Each structure stands twice: as C-alpha cells, then as structure tokens.
C-alpha cells in the first residue's frame, strides 16, 4: 500500500477534506456572527466587507451559517455511514462466514432491499420516523446497510479463500480467531474505501432530504436545507444558493476523491 496522498486525486481530496474538517470541527468558533442573528437592514445582500458571503432573507450572515452548518452536514454524512457500515459489516460478515443456508437467506433478503433505490428507501424510512436530522441519519444508515453487507460479505469471501485463512483453518483455529484476526483486518480495506466514498453519498442524500423537507429542519444551518430555503430567493441573491451548494459539492467531492485514492493505493493492480 502506498500513501493515498501521493496521487493528485488523493492530494486534492485530502485538501478538501482538510478544509471541510476544519470547518466541521472549528466552524462554530470561526464564525463571525451568530448564525441565527437577524440583520433586517442588510437582507439578501451579496458579499461585503461585513458579510463576506452575503446575507439571507432575514439578514443572517451566510458565512456564519455555513460554518455552523459544517458540523451537522459533515457529521451527518459520517455518522450515517458509520452506522450503516457497522450494521452492514456485521450482517455481511455473518453471511460470509456462516455460508450455506444462512448466507443464502441473508443474501436473498439483502437482494430484496437492494432492489429498492437508496433514496426511495431513505424516503420511506424517514417518512415513518417523521423527518428531522436524527431520523434522516438513521434512515440513510438503514438504506446503506444492505449495500455494505454485500460489500463486507464479498470482502470476507475473497479473504476466506486466501491461503493464510486456510492455514488458520487447517491449524484448527476457532472461528472467532479466524474472523477477528485473519479475515477482518484484511477485509477492512475495501470496506473502509467504500465507507469513505459513501460518506459523500450520505452528505448528498442528507442534503437532498433537507431539500425535500424531510431532513434537517429550520432553523438548522444544514447545507441542504440552506439551499432549499434559498431557492425562493435565488434570483434576488444567488449567493444564498450558490454558497451552500458549492460547499456540499466540495465536501462530497473531498470524500469521493479521497476514497478513490485510498482504493487505488490499496489496490496494487490499479496503482500503476
């Protein structure tokens, strides 16, 4: 494995992640204003010295809202992915390790869920749960689970036939040891890669749910919601749409690029 930062995609992705990460971790302290503070005199303004990225319909500072929205947006993506990856990995590993009918049954059910498009699945779940950030996160996690289970399973299956695993079986190792020490550490590569890329999907789905009114709710500063609220004013102050829109795209792109670079660096065949 070479460092993923060696390649241009990795470098650009890493840089984007750094920016997004700083915003997510320190955004609220970097923000020049209270993100909810009204400034009725300067509504719907473009960038100015006082408000670097302009103001929204209530005269709230867009930069401050963007910075405050970074944690919820980014951690939404990461949280949803982590939950989905954890659940999916457990299911996939069980299927991959157990084999036989357990595998068949689990995979048939997984196939069933995979037949429902992600966004549709998320919508169904979020409607049951009733909207809101936490519920949306859970819904995205649930929607990710079958796909991750499939990936985890195939990672496990590809590792399971490696000779060092066969060696462990031949040695008479316990299943727990084989899964925990021989299979999982080596199967984690593709799972981590997939998870990194999926963070970008999660961010986009989260933003989309916000846009559809099912995700984050006002007065949250989540970026998708910012775009949704701004659409009404997009002709009066395009910055309101453009700024959070670009922020979402950059965050998603960062995870995407970095995930690809990570994959390339793990996969010797494609790293040349």
């Amino acid at each position: 494995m070479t460092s993923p930062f060696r390649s241009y995609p990795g470098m650009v992705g890493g840089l984007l992640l750094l920016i997004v990460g700083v915003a997510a971790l320190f955004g609220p302290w970097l923000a020049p204003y209270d993100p909810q503070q009204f400034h009725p005199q300067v509504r719907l303004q473009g960038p100015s010295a006082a408000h670097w990225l302009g103001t929204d319909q209530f005269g709230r500072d867009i930069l401050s809202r963007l910075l405050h929205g970074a944690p919820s947006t980014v951690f939404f993506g990461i949280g949803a992915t982590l939950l989905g990856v954890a659940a999916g990995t457990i299911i996939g590993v069980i299927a991959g390790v157990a084999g036989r009918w357990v595998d068949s049954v689990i995979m048939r059910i997984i196939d069933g869920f995979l037949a429902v498009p992600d966004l549709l699945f998320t919508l169904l779940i979020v409607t049951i749960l009733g909207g809101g950030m936490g519920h949306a996160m859970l819904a995205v996690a649930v929607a990710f689970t079958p796909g991750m289970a499939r990936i985890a399973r195939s990672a496990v299956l590809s590792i399971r036939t490696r000779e060092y695993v066969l060696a462990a079986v031949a040695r008479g190792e316990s299943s727990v040891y084989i899964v925990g020490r021989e299979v999982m550490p080596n199967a984690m590569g593709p799972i981590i890669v997939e998870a990194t890329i999926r963070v970008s999907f999660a961010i986009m789905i989260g933003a989309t749910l916000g846009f559809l009114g099912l995700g984050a709710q006002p007065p949250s500063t989540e970026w998708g919601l910012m775009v949704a609220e701004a659409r009404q004013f997009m002709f009066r102050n395009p910055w309101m749409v453009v700024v959070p829109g670009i922020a979402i795209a950059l965050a998603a792109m960062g995870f995407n690029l970095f995930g690809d670079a990570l994959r390339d660096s793990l996969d010797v065949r494609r790293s040349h």
Partner: protein
Amino acid sequence: MTEFTVYRRGFMVGLAATAGILPGVSLAQAGDPVRGGTLRISHSTRIATLNVLTLSGPAEYPVIDMVYSGLTRIGPDNTPLPDLAESWEASEDATSFTFNLRPGVTFHDGSPLTAADVVATFEAILDPDIPSAARAVLTMVERIEAVDDLTVRFHLSTPFADLPFSTAHANARILSKAVVEGDLSQIETTANGTGPFKLETYDSARIVRLVRNENYFIEGKPYLDAVEMHLFPDLAAETVNFLSGDVDVMLNVQQADYDRIASAPGVNALRVPSGRYINVVMRQDQPPFDDVRVRRALAMAVDRQLLVDIVLEGLGRVGNDNILSPEFQFYIDSPEIPYDPAAARALLAEAGYPDGIDITLVASNRPAIRGQVAIAIRQMAEPAGFRINVESMPHDTYLANVWMQGNFYMGYWGMQPTEDATFRLLLTSDASFQDTAWFNAEFDALVELGQATVDPAERARIYAEAQELILRDVPYIVPFFEDVLTASRSHVEGWTVQPISRVFFIEDVWLNRS
C-alpha cells in the same frame, strides 16, 4: 409592470337580492370583452380531487368554481350574490330561508337543474356518513324542502342570519340528484356541474383542462374557450415559467417573488388584502400558557411590523391578535401591541417565570411561512426571556402528530366569509378546531346571539363585545394578515382574486390580444 392593490371593507351585507349580471370586477378593462382563447393558469399545489364536498386545495377551488355553481356566491365586496338562486327571502326570525332558482339552467350533461337537485345536495352535505366541509356552517339546518321545481326552502333549528353566506360556502356547490344518489365516489374524478366551464381533462399529476360551457346560464359568458390548470410543484420553477411567458396566470405568488414579478415587463401583479393569517396556538389547559400574562408577554415580544417587513416582504398588515381582519363588517379596531421585550420580561417574571421559559414551538414546513414566522418569533422573543426551540417538521408529520394535539405551534388559516364562521372555526367551545382550550361561556353566548340577530347595529355591538373578549384573553397571537398575491400577463383582462380565495369569476376573464 402594473400593480394593483385592492382594498375593500365595510360593504353592506344583508338579505337584499340583487338579480342580474354579476358586477364585473376587472379593474383595467380595456375595451369590450373578446371571446376566445385559452387561459393557462399555473399553480403549485396538486388538484388531488374534484370532490366538491371535501376538497380544500388552493388550486382545487378555482376548478370547482368554474365547474359548479352554488345557490349563492361570495362577491368581491364579501357579500353573498345570486348564483343559481336568483333571489332569496328570510323569515323575520331568520329561521327559514326561501331560495328562488334561476329557470332554464342545465347541468353539463344536459339535464335540467331543479329544486330536487338542490335538496339532494344539501342532504348529502348534512349526512354524517358523507364527509363534507360545508356541514360545519350548516349545522343549524333542520330540513330542506323543495317547494316547487324552482323553489327551495331551508328550515333552521336556530335563527341564523348568515345562511346566504353558508350556502355560498365553496364546498356547498350544487350536484345533480342523480350523482348524489349514484356512486358518490365518482365525483372524485368527474364533474357534472352548472358552472361556466366543463371539465375536459383531469390529470391530477399534470394538467386540468376545462372548456366553455355553451349553455352557461349567463348569456355571452364565459369569454374564454378553455382554461388549463398547469401544476408546478416547485415554486422557483413556477415563477421562472410564468416570467418566461409560458402561462398566462400565476395563481399564487410568493411574497419573495412579488416585487420581481411586479416589475417584470408585460405582467400585472395583483395584491389583495385579506383576512388570511398566521396564529400562534398556545394551549391554555397546561402551563405555561394557562396564565394569560404569559400569553400577553409573548404577544408583546413579537415585533409585528418587522414580521410584515421581512416575512411578508411588506405585503400584509400588522395584526394585533384579533382573528378578524379589517375586511369583516363587524371588525373593531384593536389597539396596537408594541414590541416591548423589557415589559414582556417583566410580565413573565410577574407570572412566575423570572428566569424565562424554555419551550418548543412546532411549525409545519408547509407553507414555508409558518417556519419563517416561528424562527423570527424565536429571535424576537429571546430578549423577553422566551427561549424558544423551533421544531419544523414535514406537514404530514405535523398533521398526524401535532395539529390539535400540541401545546405551542403555528396555525395558518384562510379568511372565512363571516364573523360567525371565523369564531366557530376556532374559538367557541364547540368550534370545529378548538385547539387552544380557551373555553369561554360568555364568548359562546355572544356568538350564539350574534348568529340569531338580524339587525346590523345590534350584531355589530355583539360581535364587538366578542372581539373584546378575544383581545383580553389572547387565545392566539395573530401577528399579521397576509395579502393574497397573484399575477397575470398583461393581455389577460379581468383576472382577480378574492380575499377568501375561494371564488374567482373566471367567466369574466378574457384575452386581449390586440
């Protein structure tokens, strides 16, 4: 480029039956109406049903207003006008009303309109097994009687002076007897009315197309050959589409877009003051709103002018917690409630909350204005000690979980035709949507009395007293009244909307292509 603002108030309302042609409401009528053409109207909410008995969608009303007629119809001056009924008389005590039907009216399928159809329709409305929205304003009707083929008499259990308003209820349009007695579910998707237009295409996902009713009972009308209702679920897309000239009329304009649309070339933007309002629901059977001082404190912590300025973009009027707007005949001017967070804080302390209150305000996300007002109130009320956590949610979740159940949420109501209907909708103890737990026997008695009183002066006194009670107890915070906004291309003549947004007079609209 032209902007019209229509202000009307205080017109005489009574039992006077004005026969004849409806007054033209167009303001910039240039020359004589010309026949022909198709009017394309865009709207952003779905026409989900044509069920005239239950529908309530903003875009559904114009459709049934074109397809169906009622006995009476609310006119632009907020008075009942003749529609299928040429004239009507009330008994002295206002317990019996006789409506004289227009002769020679036929349904779209060619069958003649008779008193039997009217009776069947109102009996269906009153049938508790048939969902119908108009029942709430007709509860006092005991019996409907077909005196002869063209005469219908309503017998009331209690005196009710506003019955011609009730018969003008948008959901009380006349169906044919055959339809009522047949499979009623067919009115969901088909329509056989007596209105100026006939239903041609109904595709709820896309377009509803209506064509001229050649046999409309007013000679020469309608002017248009056809009307198309185009659905645009995305507001931004709808605005763009209207501005690029692909439709003739934009049914509802958002406040945010109004200035831009009004200043666009070739566009007439229309702004009609209305009694449409946001109300902050505060349940009074539990703390903290069980104490009127808390409600008053919150009322003082709301900067109403700022709300009008930034949420309504100035397109509305400040409200002072009276749910009646100045359009109502018996409205009383209520004193202005100034924004005074310091006084509010003091009042809150006096009510036993010196450290302020933490509370969650729920707002449905539809329309967006609910959330916007909630967020603004959160900011305004903060210095007064109200630490409000705004919880916005999808409308369906709100309907299922909060509406009529929560203790602090944003309501949003359209204008009702009468004081009585307004009070009975929300405020009387047996109101249809009693969501405040404000039970006031004195108020109930006043409303009962007002309903039975015919003399306008007496009614004015009674309703004034009722309004005083509302202002005293602050069952709701009503921060503003929203103007109704619409827009048309400048070649559209006669397009207008009413404060209550239920009747449209599209038969008067014509296209000036010259």
